[in-house]
């Protein structure tokens, strides 16, 4: 077990459907008031882009029931909106804790970016259990970095 005093750099990995409050709480508890550099990595999955590749998919408006073709542009917009929402929520959670998380977006398909993150000397990685098989985690575990998987139920998309 890593001594709290030695935790200087922490990565918090989240997905679009992760319950942020629980993950953040785990982080705060783990640090127990210690100062550390926190980087939040929003692991953006490619579901929307995959859907958008299908030529027959449409988005049905919740209010009017109107149908609009679901395009790559719309998929990208949804991803950006999700990142924005998560970043804002994290800032709210971090307010008053003395922590100033840096926010990064990692597309699951961006291999180069994945390698860059692996090379960083993380003292602790906190991630939802859904990311158990995510290559970044596997690699970090292999490099004997401390990984804390938080058992949370992902929200439906």
């Amino acid at each position, binding site marked *: 077990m890593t001594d709290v005093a030695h935790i200087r750099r922490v990565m918090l990995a989240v997905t679009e459907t992760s319950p942020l409050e629980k993950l953040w709480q785990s982080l705060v508890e783990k640090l127990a008031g210690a100062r550390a550099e926190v980087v939040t990595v929003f692991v953006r999955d490619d579901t929307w882009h995959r859907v958008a590749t299908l030529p027959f998919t449409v988005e*049905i408006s919740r209010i009017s*029931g109107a149908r609009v073709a679901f395009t790559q542009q719309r998929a990208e917009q949804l991803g950006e909106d999700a990142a924005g929402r998560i970043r804002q929520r994290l800032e709210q959670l971090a307010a008053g804790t003395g922590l100033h998380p840096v926010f990064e977006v990692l597309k699951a398909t961006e291999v180069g970016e994945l390698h860059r993150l692996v090379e960083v000397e993380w003292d602790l990685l906190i991630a939802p259990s859904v990311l158990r098989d995510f290559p970044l985690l596997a690699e970090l575990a292999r490099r004997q970095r401390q990984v804390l998987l938080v058992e949370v139920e992902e929200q439906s998309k």
Partner: protein
Amino acid sequence: MAEILARATRLAVPTERLRTICTSLGEAGARPPAQPTVSVSQLGQARAVESLRFGIGLEREGYNVFVLGPPGSRRHSLATELAEARASEKKAPDDWCYANNFSDPERPRALRLPAGRGTEFRDDMRALIEDIRIAIPAIFEEEDYRNQLKALEAELQQEIEEQWEEIRRKAAKEDISVLQTPSGYVLAPVHDGKVIDDEQFEKLPKEKRDSIQATIKTLGEDLQSRIESLPRLRKKQYERVRALDQDVTAHAVTVLMQDLKAKYADVADVAAYLEEAEQDIIDNAQEFRQTDEPALPFLHQDSSVLLMSYEINLVVSNKPDNHAPVVYEVNPSYTNLVGKIEHRAEMGALLTDFSMIRGGTLLQANGGYLVLDIHRVLGRPFAWEALKQALFTRQVRIESPADTLGFATTTTLKPEPIPLDVKIILVGERWLYYLLSLYDKEFGGLFKVAVDFDDDVKRTTDNVETYAQLIDIRIGEYELLPFDESAVKRIIEQRSRQADDSERLSMNIRSLDDLLVEADYWARQREAKSVEASDVVAAITHKKIRLGRVESRIIDAIQRDTLLIDTSGKCVGQVNGLSVVDLGDYRFGYPVRITATTRIGTGDVVDIEREVKLGGAIHSKGVLILSSALTSRYAPETPLSLHASIVFEQSYGGVEGDSASVAELCALVSSIAKVPIRQNLACTGSINQLGRVQAVGGVNEKIEGFFEICRQRGLDGSHAVIIPRDNVKHLMLREDVVEAVQQEKFAVYAVETIDEAIELLTGQPAGERDDNGEFPVDSVNHRVEERLIRYATQRKQFGKEAAKND
């Protein structure tokens, strides 16, 4: 000559006729005065009082009253007094309220309640509102209500969930995932729990691909139709909640309003209103529990605003133990008469509602009497038309003048009209009454009763006694020092002077009050305990001094020979006429020189004043009459071959009236006969075609005006004024004039014919035609006739010579 002197003496007005002294006040002379009699307030106005009683008593359409008479004649007080007497016999009229019209808020309802119950009803409604303000939100806080509400909400949620689950279930069965975006849903095929992309999709057999697409299409349509049905579900839910709210509110409101409805069951308007109010409260039950903060503070629309709509706007309130109202509106503007609808500015817009309706004096006086000054009504825009409209329709319709004229551009209220039953008493001067009668065709139908106030009253023994009592009442009202008998007598005399008649007393109470107050002032100045005759004289004298600037300037101009007036010697064709200047509150007289020149001519008497348009119509008429008198007296059978011109010397303003026609004729006679006129005399009077001298106005001021000039130059007993005999009764001369006559330093002659005036002015016999129709040879008239015949002969001769030359 002796005969002429004897005749002049006979024409002299006796001293006692120059000023009729008040010798007795009857019982009113007793100090302290006796209790005033009832007739005091109606002194001299018997006809007016009778007419007023008739007008006030006859309660039929159109029998409104117009009180006409001069200002200061107690028109208002007498009209109000009689109206109040009649009103005291009538019960207090109903109260009127404006209330919200729940089905049409732009047309507020007018509610009628018995006197006194309007206030009660308004207070009851306020109490009810307070109860509702507390009771209804409390109901919504009750556990039972909350549970029912939660159950309804859960019901809706469950219904939506069920539909949603059904879609998910169907989709999952077909390997379709229902993904949610922030604004909608996306249906996509899945494999092993993961959405497949186009590449994976293309690898699927065609049948599978077609099946997936068809399923997504069907599920999409199903989803779409369920989404479209959601508003219906929510509406249904809203209606359920609303029904629940109404149920709980209805129970509470019914209980709260039960007593109120029973209390006002006998007032039809109110009973109907309460039913509607109750239903409205129930219909708007949800508004009473609104607690959410508004998006913007100034948009706050909480239940207190809603509760305002159940307020009662009491526009007419009467006390049940009072009698019918008598209202005097000092400023009868349109809005003061009819009422108005006020507005409040909110977010740059002008808003209004029934609570901002304000009643006018027509409503205040409804069921009673409304006293108005007609000149003020006519002077206020739209007021006269509004008043007539109200009387015609017998309704008060409160709306803005712009609305009445159709100029309103914004939505405003149209309150229900209120039935009108009021007697209007207009007070005004006579000329306004006659003008309205002549030019306003509706006037006669609306104001059928004319009440004509007399300007003065006969100076009988009884009236003097009553007048003295009236004086005492006024003294009491103004809390003046007591007036002794001499003061009251002097006031009585002055009232005759103000009436311009020794046999009448002025009924201008305003000027009486002024005299009393000013006499009191002078008595106090000398630290007296009571007012005496000398104080009354001081008041009269000082008023004359205060207002006498113009008079003193004219006298000064005469004394410095700027205005040429001779008061001694004789002169042909020149006579002292007398003029009066009226400055409204003060009149004075002064002499004017009238001259006449004559020569042979064609019978023209030229009035220079008329030629230069300085002579008024009546003055011109006077000159034409004297021309006719000249012809009929001296040239009845020969053509008048004279050219004469008459002028008011040094008169640069207008000349009006015919009171100088005697003087003008005398100047003409003097010029024709070449007989000089005495300049120590002045003359006033009008003349008819037969040579009869007729009465004129302002005779006192005229005499005093000439007297003043002569007095300053030195009275020698030769100075006098000639007046018409018919004016003797009007004489109320100043004490100093009377004193001068007593001392034979001054005289007043009263003449009935032009011949008497000629004799006095020329000092020569005028001459009467004898049986042969001829004047005595040495008479003035003979000389006039002789000269006129000579002119006619000469003219005839000139005519013949001219014809021969042609």
